[in-house]
């Protein structure tokens, strides 16, 4: 492979990529948008925070200390039930608790799925705690909770969410970029133009894909920076492992994009199919919320989502959740080989004389 | 006595410092084919777009049908048909659907099937416009310009990019329109096209009309009966003294031309000088002047420069 031809090829593609408004948007700023939106939705504001509860109690017993002991709640007392309900409707408190000495009424707003589990937990722990106190029940089974760390660092929920954002960013950069190169350029006749030059298919592929790696890296570094600033992430990056993971993941996601360009000749159709895949993977790959919440049949589907494994690689290299060595090697190998094989095959198909 | 269809008076249009159209006046007469000839950037398209109502002149007047009707009036729009320089239609409509659509915008017109036949697009009747070739799109554009059976047809560089056969087909269409008493205004930078189709020709350059008239009138205006052209063989420098022959003009590269009323004398002097300066001549031809020669005489440049 001629280095002298690779350099101008790489520079040309790099200029093209960074001057193409659409491409810059979808590879750099789009993932950032997702980072900010999803980061706030699925991991809160990035720090430990107590959920706010409102309490109205009539009768002699004060259950405020009981509630506060039972979990990470911050309790505000309201003078009347109406004021409490107003506070719940207005979003001032997550859950309203009304206690009259014999029963507890829980008031809440429906539809807030990110808080659903918190509300459910609150209900059962508060009821249990109050019942225990009233009946002076002794704790028979004492469950000691021992936190473990799966990685090099004690991760927060923000760390997990941000690693998912990085995985999605790699997916976006890898998948859409090859649709641009092999789809749009092919349609416009740019590949045909290269075909009649002495440039080897491999040189072309390297020149065009190196640019995508560069863009991918820039995007990821931006995400890491912003997530540290906004969400106080505690990544402990193993840079060599991180580099390997990003390269193999980008190759793997390119393989996905290439697969779509081979199936769908029209680049716009391939783009649309890629958009659907991206949405499916965002929700089904266990990146933003646990697979445990998915119905069985969808959990099976998620096992086939490549981005699930990219997420695992990212968590490993960011020190959040370590993988066994075999798994790490296998995932990297599979992603890289798929990417290289499809790049080679596609390159030969579109760049060699038929 | 033919009526004046369009009266153009002192038309001006500038963009910043550039004078795209610089004080031009002319009339378009009923039933004639008027060609506006000139190189790229001469102001032809700007002129014609002002006549079509697509651009507003900075000063001057354009009036239709001897009734002081401006181009933007409804009556004018009903009576003109326009084929634009770059043809663009709705990509996902077929040829027939496109014609039907445009036909539906006018109160009167001809059927799309007739037009499809006229421009020989029968086989592509149901094809989406995005799948038509350049030549087919151009023919469709001409057909669209005729949907309302217009009195005046504007054709803006209708054969640019077409192969010779397609060009000939389009010329036939224009001549058929002429037989049907249509008034046609045609812009082109192909002199053969103007020579073949036009009753009258206006030559424009740098926003001005530099000459006008019938083909014969234009050629007669340069007072030349014949043109002797030749090429100097070899690659050595041509002596300046040789080039100081009366009436000699440089055409391109090592090709020159001499306009003359006395061919024999001119040939004699030419061979004498070539012998004197030891220059070998090639491709010596004698021809009658054409529009290109008119343009070169007027501007000192070729039409295609």
């Amino acid at each position, binding site marked *: 492979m001629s280095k002298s031809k690779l350099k101008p090829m790489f520079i040309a593609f790099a200029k093209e990529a960074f001057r193409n408004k659409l491409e810059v948007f979808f590879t750099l700023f789009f993932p950032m948008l997702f980072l900010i939106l999803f980061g706030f939705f699925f991991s809160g504001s990035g720090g430990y925070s107590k959920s706010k509860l409102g309490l109205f109690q009539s009768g002699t017993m004060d259950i405020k200390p009981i509630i506060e002991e039972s979990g990470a709640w911050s309790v505000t007392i309201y003078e009347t039930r109406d004021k409490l309900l107003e506070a719940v409707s207005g979003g001032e408190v997550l859950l309203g608790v009304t206690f009259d000495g014999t029963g507890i009424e829980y008031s809440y707003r429906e539809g807030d799925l990110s808080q659903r589990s918190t509300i459910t937990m609150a209900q059962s722990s508060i009821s249990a705690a109050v019942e225990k106190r009233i009946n002076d029940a002794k704790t028979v089974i004492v469950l000691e909770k021992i936190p473990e760390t799966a990685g090099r660092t004690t991760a927060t929920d923000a760390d997990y969410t941000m690693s998912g954002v990085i995985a999605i960013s790699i997916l976006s950069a890898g998948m859409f970029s090859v649709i641009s190169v092999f789809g749009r350029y092919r349609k416009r006749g740019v590949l045909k133009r290269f075909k009649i030059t002495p440039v080897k298919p491999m040189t072309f592929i390297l020149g065009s894909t190196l640019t995508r790696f560069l863009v991918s890296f820039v995007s990821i570094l931006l995400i890491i920076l912003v997530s540290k600033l906004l969400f106080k992430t505690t990544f402990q990056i193993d840079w060599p492992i991180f580099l390997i993971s990003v390269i193999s993941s980008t190759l793997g996601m390119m393989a996905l994009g290439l697969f779509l360009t081979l199936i769908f000749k029209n680049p716009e159709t391939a783009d649309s199919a890629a958009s659907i895949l991206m949405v499916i993977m965002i929700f089904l790959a266990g990146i933003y919320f646990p697979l445990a919440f998915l119905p069985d049949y969808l959990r099976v589907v998620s096992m086939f989502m490549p981005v699930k494994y990219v997420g695992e690689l990212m968590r490993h290299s960011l020190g959040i959740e370590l993988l066994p060595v075999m*798994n790490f090697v296998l995932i990297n190998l599979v992603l890289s080989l798929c990417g290289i094989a499809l790049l080679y095959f596609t390159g030969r198909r579109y760049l060699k004389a038929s | 006595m033919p009526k004046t269809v369009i009266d153009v008076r002192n038309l001006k249009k500038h963009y910043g410092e550039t004078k795209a159209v610089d004080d031009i006046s002319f009339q378009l007469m009923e039933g004639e084919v008027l060609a506006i000839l000139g190189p790229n950037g001469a102001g032809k398209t700007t002129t014609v777009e002002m006549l079509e109502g697509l651009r507003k002149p900075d000063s001057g007047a354009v009036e239709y049908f001897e009734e002081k009707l401006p181009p933007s009036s409804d009556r004018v729009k009903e009576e003109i048909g326009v084929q634009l320089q770059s043809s663009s239609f709705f990509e996902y409509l077929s040829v027939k659907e496109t014609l039907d659509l445009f036909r539906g915008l006018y109160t009167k017109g001809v059927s799309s099937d007739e037009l499809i036949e006229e421009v020989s697009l029968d086989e592509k009747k149901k094809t989406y416009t995005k799948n038509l070739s350049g030549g087919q799109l151009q023919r469709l554009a001409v057909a669209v310009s005729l949907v309302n059976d217009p009195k005046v047809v504007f054709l803006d560089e209708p054969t640019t990019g077409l192969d010779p056969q397609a060009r000939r087909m389009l010329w036939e269409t224009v001549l058929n329109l002429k037989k049907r008493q249509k008034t046609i205004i045609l812009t082109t930078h192909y002199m053969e096209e103007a020579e073949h189709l036009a009753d009258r020709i206006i030559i424009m350059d740098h926003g001005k009309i530099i000459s006008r008239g019938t083909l014969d009138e234009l050629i007669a205006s340069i007072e030349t009966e014949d043109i002797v052209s030749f090429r100097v063989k070899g690659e050595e420098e041509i002596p300046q003294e040789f080039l100081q022959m009366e009436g000699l003009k440089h055409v391109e590269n090592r090709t020159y031309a001499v306009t003359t009323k006395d061919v024999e004398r001119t040939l004699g002097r030419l061979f004498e000088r070539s012998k004197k300066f030891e220059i070998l001549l090639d491709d010596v031809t004698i021809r009658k002047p054409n529009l290109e020669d008119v343009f070169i005489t007027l501007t000192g440049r070729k039409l295609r420069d």
Partner: protein
Amino acid sequence: MSRMLKFTSGLFKNEIREFQVMFWSFIFPLILYFILTSVFGGMASGNSQGISFNLGIVKEENLTGFGRVLDEVLGSISSHGGPFVQREYGNLDEALEDLKNGKQDIVLVIPKGTNAKMTGSLMLQVGDVPLRMHYISGKESSSIAANILGEIMNEVNLEIKKRQEENYIDIASTNNVVSAKQEKGFDYNEYIFPGVALMMILSVSLFNSPIGLIQYRVSGTNKKLYTTPLKPLEYFSAHFVKLVFTMLMSLVLLYIIALTVYRVQGTIFDPRFILSLIYSMLVSVSFGLMVASFAKKLSTATVVGQSLYQVMMFMGGLYFPVFDLPWGLRWIVYLLPTTYLVELSRRFMGYTIAPISMTWLIVVPLIWMIFSVSVFALNFRKVMGYE
């Protein structure tokens, strides 16, 4: 009139035959509807069926006698419908390794001496029974699983007391959903319907509309149309009718899917709900026209359209309530018209999610509509390419 109708028909045919339009206006929203209802439908209804966490158990001694109570409890939470799938380990190291590898969500250790302690505690009411639970800090599935098991053990403690105490006092608990009418339970498929409907409307108004206008200008198609008798108002009316028709088609499709597949109830036929959708169409179309006013090039319109689409989808409350966001982002929520439009539709379905009065739900989008139309009117000639 017939000229305008003929032109509308041509525009509509041209639009509907383009795959991209079909995809973004019809197919993509329905796919998203399917994904959201599949993923969140179970979560939202509080239906724990289908939810399962992996529980690793390490028994340092076999459970016998009173210790069997624990076996029963573990058995009941791992049976059909329970939230756990359990696996027993021979040693703690293996279990912890699987915990760190993600194969288990939590690991419960039943230490030596549990049998004796269970006997002492249950028979003699002396001492307690310590168990250890290992979980991964920060990992949501692990934290939730740990909390669930913790609550289960609390319930077990109460149950034990109940059986020992004759005069045990049960504390009854009731739920009061302030955001929905009392007579109906929360139905996520119904809740999400206005969000998906608005998404379909937005895809037409933020993509098709501005991109179409700019495309026709840039390609020269508009220029050709200006040489015909078609008036600017007729052109524009045709464009508007085409958009409305496309939106209506996509909404009809959504209605059919919602009624037949997801069994969404009749509130979506409430005249006020339908009026709110029409209002949403008007506001969204005007917003799209404003986008066309600011974008000179096709690529700019695409980028701006996509950004606004995503922001409005997620921060406009289409899928998740957004009023708990930090104020740094919440002001955006209050700025977006979709926040008010989707809440307005939901109000007519019987839900009150947003802390916004009815007046503001109508006024704010109206302000946006007037502003957008004004901007477009001022830039009309530029957008349409008139000289």
